[in-house]
């Protein structure tokens, strides 16, 4: 089992560009999440999904969008990238409620 797979691992964007971070899981988990990790700040929840077709905002959703068309995939879209979106992004999943989270290896995004 691959678990949670994120692509790309690294990306540099120019201000104003857009991109999609991909996330897929093969554990048949219902719940999926996107977090961002900044130094000294822990992990902040951006968006989450409790199943295909259902998404909701987390703590820091501004500047991001998500969709969940299948159980396996939960892409994160960045529109009009800003330097404040420079961060490491983690996708995670859990079987039921947010007990044990399974994280991907992260996507490091730099906006210049």
């Amino acid at each position, binding site marked *: 089992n691959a678990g949670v797979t994120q692509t790309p691992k690294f990306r540099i964007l120019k201000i104003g560009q857009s991109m999609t971070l991909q996330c897929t899981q093969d554990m048949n988990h219902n*719940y999926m999440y996107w977090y961002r990790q900044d130094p000294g700040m*822990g*992990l902040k929840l951006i968006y989450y999904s409790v199943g295909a077709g259902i998404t909701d905002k*987390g703590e820091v959703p501004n500047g991001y969008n998500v969709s969940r068309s299948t159980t396996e995939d939960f892409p994160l879209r960045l529109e009009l990238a800003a330097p404040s979106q420079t961060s490491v992004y983690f996708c995670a999943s859990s079987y039921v409620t947010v007990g044990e989270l399974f994280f991907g290896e*992260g996507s490091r995004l730099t906006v210049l």
Partner: protein
Amino acid sequence: QQQVKQSPQSLIVQKGGISIINCAYENTAFDYFPWYQQFPGKGPALLIAIRPDVSEKKEGRFTISFNKSAKQFSLHIMDSQPGDSATYFCAARLNDYKLSFGAGTTVTVRA
């Protein structure tokens, strides 16, 4: 605004020593308190977790102590090993979907 306050930011311990990381919270609605371990370049992974009706939980060299009245909990790493060098995050669950994470503690174990 950090709902879970974690300290220290970093610590260095000699091999065989004890590492102690502390977390404090205000919201009494939190019902589950996990600790995650993260190695460089990897995502966090669940290490150990506790519910508020238990005062202590031990798994191998890792122990969580929980003080409900003080709204504090801590992670003790006994007989620390170089392989324990990582960043540790405490967290608290508010509801089915949301974990609030502490800021993280980077532990370095010197051989």
